[in-house]
């Protein structure tokens, strides 16, 4: 989408001076490509806020490298990301020979790729020799042995890649472009890794952390414009999660609108939908109560909001089309913190006869985009605020998946809960403290949501 969005030019900066998002994004892209293609450094790092056109950048950089006669390997983190990238590459340039290196499991890749004539899929790297671009997951690349190193690589979602995963694949390339979103969920380990905290190569840290600790002079770029987030969301997400690297929305106020064919019936779900359509945010607040993770009332409320959203015939106006486009089930997502919560919401939606809505945890929603999202707040109904629930990236992912509006369902009392549970993670020598911490970010988001609060009334 970068540089190709005619409707975005009208966005205005908050200070009043004219701001041309397309031009700003194009400038950033040019600088990145210049460093990647002609720079002297072995690595280039690109920070991308949510929906800033990271995939578009990766596709463009890959095509330009290939066009310059420099074959490259692309490392992504999940099979879904790899399939998506290959699909985008093949769609953008149907003649470009692209290899999809996959595992030897049954159904290892998306069958969509078989529809592209120029895409060759194999579990053996030897079958893909000589192709301009070979794409695979970090886990699969780590098993590749005895090949001539590639001169170039692109590492996608580098902030979600663990340092030890980079260690396993870095011998395969000479230089690389690292692209990722520093605000999303950090990689984690199921076992303790404290003994290495503070080491530059802490294997549980993110790949970018290790890379920059050892190569502090690498050029670092930033994509300045989020094309996904509406003008109502970008300032909040930028302030709460990217306080030192602010970004802007590519669209202005009023360019995106949500409307309903059916008027509100005055219930909580309807009123919160109206609020969200009006302001981009809605908080449906249930009475304070300590609940199990799969809080039946909150789960039912989430399902009810989705049901009403569909029933009321929501339609979205955006720069993508002149006519309002119906918000169908596939344009809606429900985000939760835990898998059992997602399962409970799925069951509740099935009970209301809703199908086709994506319901998943923050981890699995990373990188995805929808018109409207309904979020079960990670701290809703909890007696405590653990590091898991406070993690900045979790809330950031949940609050930045939408193009139009985001409805948060939560029990009252989260602000008090936060105040009772300040962050207590030990400070480790040699570890750069991450800003903002989850506690601060949670408060920032809550303070904003409080202005769009609707009390639950069935």
């Amino acid at each position, binding site marked *: 989408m970068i540089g190709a969005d005619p409707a975005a030019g009208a966005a205005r900066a908050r200070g009043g001076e004219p701001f041309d998002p397309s031009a700003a994004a194009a400038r950033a892209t040019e600088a990145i490509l210049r460093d990647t293609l002609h720079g002297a450094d*072995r*690595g280039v790092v690109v920070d991308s806020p949510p929906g800033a056109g990271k995939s578009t950048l990766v596709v463009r950089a890959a095509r330009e490298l290939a066009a310059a006669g420099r074959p490259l390997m692309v490392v992504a983190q999940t099979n879904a990301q790899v399939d998506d990238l290959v699909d985008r590459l093949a769609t953008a340039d149907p003649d470009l020979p692209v290899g999809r290196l996959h595992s030897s499991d*049954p*159904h290892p890749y998306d069958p969509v790729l078989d529809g592209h004539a120029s895409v060759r899929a194999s579990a053996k790297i030897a079958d893909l020799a000589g192709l301009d671009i070979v794409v695979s997951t970090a*886990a699969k690349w*780590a*098993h590749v042995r005895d090949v001539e190193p590639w001169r170039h690589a692109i590492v996608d979602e580098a902030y979600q890649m663990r*340092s*030890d995963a*980079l*260690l*396993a694949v*870095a*011998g395969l390339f000479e230089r690389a472009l690292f692209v990722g979103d520093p605000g999303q969920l950090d990689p984690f*380990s*199921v*076992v*303790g*890794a404290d*003994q*290495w905290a503070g*080491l*530059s*190569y*802490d*294997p*549980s840290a993110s*790949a970018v952390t*290790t*890379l920059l600790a*050892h*190569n502090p002079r690498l050029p670092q770029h930033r994509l300045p414009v989020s094309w996904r987030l509406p003008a109502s969301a970008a300032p909040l997400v930028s302030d709460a999660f990217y306080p030192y690297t602010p970004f802007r929305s590519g669209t202005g106020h009023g360019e995106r609108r949500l409307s309903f064919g059916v008027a509100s019936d005055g219930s909580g779900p309807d009123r919160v939908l109206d609020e969200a359509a009006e302001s981009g945010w809605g908080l449906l607040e249930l009475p304070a109560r300590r*609940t*199990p*993770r*799969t*809080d*039946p*009332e909150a*789960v*039912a409320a989430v*399902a009810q909001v989705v049901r009403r959203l569909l029933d009321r015939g929501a339609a979205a106006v955006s720069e993508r089309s002149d006519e309002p486009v119906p918000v169908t089930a596939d344009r809606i997502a429900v985000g939760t913190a835990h*898998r*059992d919560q997602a*399962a*409970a*919401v799925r*069951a*509740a*939606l*099935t*009970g*209301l006869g809703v199908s086709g809505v994506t319901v998943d945890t923050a981890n699995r929603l990373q990188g995805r985009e929808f018109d409207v999202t309904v979020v079960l707040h990670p701290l809703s109904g909890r007696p405590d605020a653990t590091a898991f629930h406070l993690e900045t990236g979790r809330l950031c992912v949940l609050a930045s998946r939408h193009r139009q509006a985001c409805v948060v369902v939560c029990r009252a009392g989260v602000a008090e809960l936060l105040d009772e549970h300040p962050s207590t993670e030990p400070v480790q020598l040699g570890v750069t403290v991450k800003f903002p911490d989850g506690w601060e970010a949670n408060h920032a988001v809550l303070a904003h949501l409080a202005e769009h609060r609707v009390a639950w009334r069935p």
Partner: protein
Amino acid sequence: MSLITTLARMEAVREGRAQPLTTVRHRHLSERPLAFVPLTTAGEAGAPLGALVGTDRDAPRLLIVAQPRDRDLRFAFLAELAEEIQPYLDSYADEVELEERKETDPETGKKVPVQVELCADAPQLLVPSAAGVAFVRLLGRSMRFRRTAEQDPETPFPAPARVPLLGRWLTHYGERSRVPGSCLLLSLTELLSRHWATGQSPLEDQHLGSLLAWIDPPEGVPGAEAALRAESERDEDGLLRCPPAGPATDPAFDNQLLAPAMSRYDAARAEASQGVAGAEARLRLAEAELRGLIASQLRPTWDALWHGVDLLRSLPEGARVAERWKRDRWSYTAHRDRVRAGEPPQPKRDDAVTAAQKLAARETAQAQLDAHEALDDPLVMAGRRLAGEAFAGEVTDVEMAWSEARVPRPRPLITVRTEDRPHLAERVKLHRVLADGRAQSGEFVGFARTDGAAGTGGADGAAGTDGTDGAAGTGGADGTDGTTGTGGADGAGGAGDADGPGRALVVRLTGGMGRGKQPEPGSVPEKGDRVCWTLFEHAPRGGPELPDPESTPWTHGGPPDAAAPAHGPEPDPMTEEDYL
């Protein structure tokens, strides 16, 4: 904390007694473990004050440091400690069995089988608490780089023989204890809290006394009350009746008893060094007094530790524990070989590749441990089922089918009726254990509607499923209590009447049926069989190989600097006697 653990803790509160989390013991317990109960000196980081150590519960060896600020006395303590522990560690080194292992031949580069030694058993160290494990690591770190006069005649402060060697062993044991499921070095608090849920917080469970008070309270005393007493009851002199398990001491003991006794010792020692008449006798007296005081703090913990061992021994060992203990034996054997080969002590810090390898190995060990525990223990499996990671039920239908390959393979479809609510999506891989112990793989196909059985709400789930397991001795986790718990967890079922599309699941078997067109007998379940499928693998594989340290890539700082000494101590540039 998993839901089933939360339930067990709530039950423990209600019953006034810890509730079992397992039906078997999931850790290896040696027949002859060495117990080590250390104490440190307040205000002097890492300075030992005393220890009880030994393999005989009735005759522990008491070691003390009468004046912990005196480094000579500390050294003497460490030398004595080495004399106690090192022979124990060595006593397992020579009884070996031969194992065949594949090794890469350096000349041909091929994997060839070689005969290698594996120690038949391995020494096991027990400490009271997690802080004790940390102290073992600290001791190892402070001892392993010392040099004895024999190693280096020039060294200004030679360490007693065996001290550096014990340091290396304690380091190895401390490092091994970070591997999930390993049993070379164990703390009693971690062991006990794995097997029982108390009515207190996990933080409070780190107090060995109060943990035991919940698990085995005195007759007629509720666990909470017994735990509170163990934690904070003081005698008329203000001293804790149950001294802390250490290594930290009770400040009241330090101030009221230890400090004055140490002053008397110091005074007698000063006089003795000046040759004052009778000072030698007073010095002996003062030292004996200190021994008595320190023993009074150590002995209750020593007894508590063995009490805990008794409780754990009353549980039968899990079926896969021996398999994991064998890895501990490999670990012990490998370190024995490194010491014998004259290799230098472990480096202060791991290099990038070693750190990544250790992390990967531990993650694999964790996944393996989780799988093993669930397969060994229906109560643990019940927790996984409650978490949606497994399901058990009765086979209601079997439909033979074959794959469409040129050589068709059996791919029978099994319908399982279950009350569990696994987190399934199409083509999710499933695993189960066959009667002969092999694993069978399958994949989830979809839901099948059961005849009118659907739609009865979710809350009765646990009652039905726990009965099916017939888990002996599951205590509080049986049907009666399960109902209340599951009501909350499955609330969605009741609230939205969202019973899902039925409770009969269809699974396609994809492996474990032999090589022929017809499945091997017994490899396909029959109608009426009870089966338990898991969503997790039973024998998770490790990650990929990492590069050699010499080929550490540029992203991780390149190969470790060859110029800098990779091993051994490096004196502080300003104060040479300090090793960083």
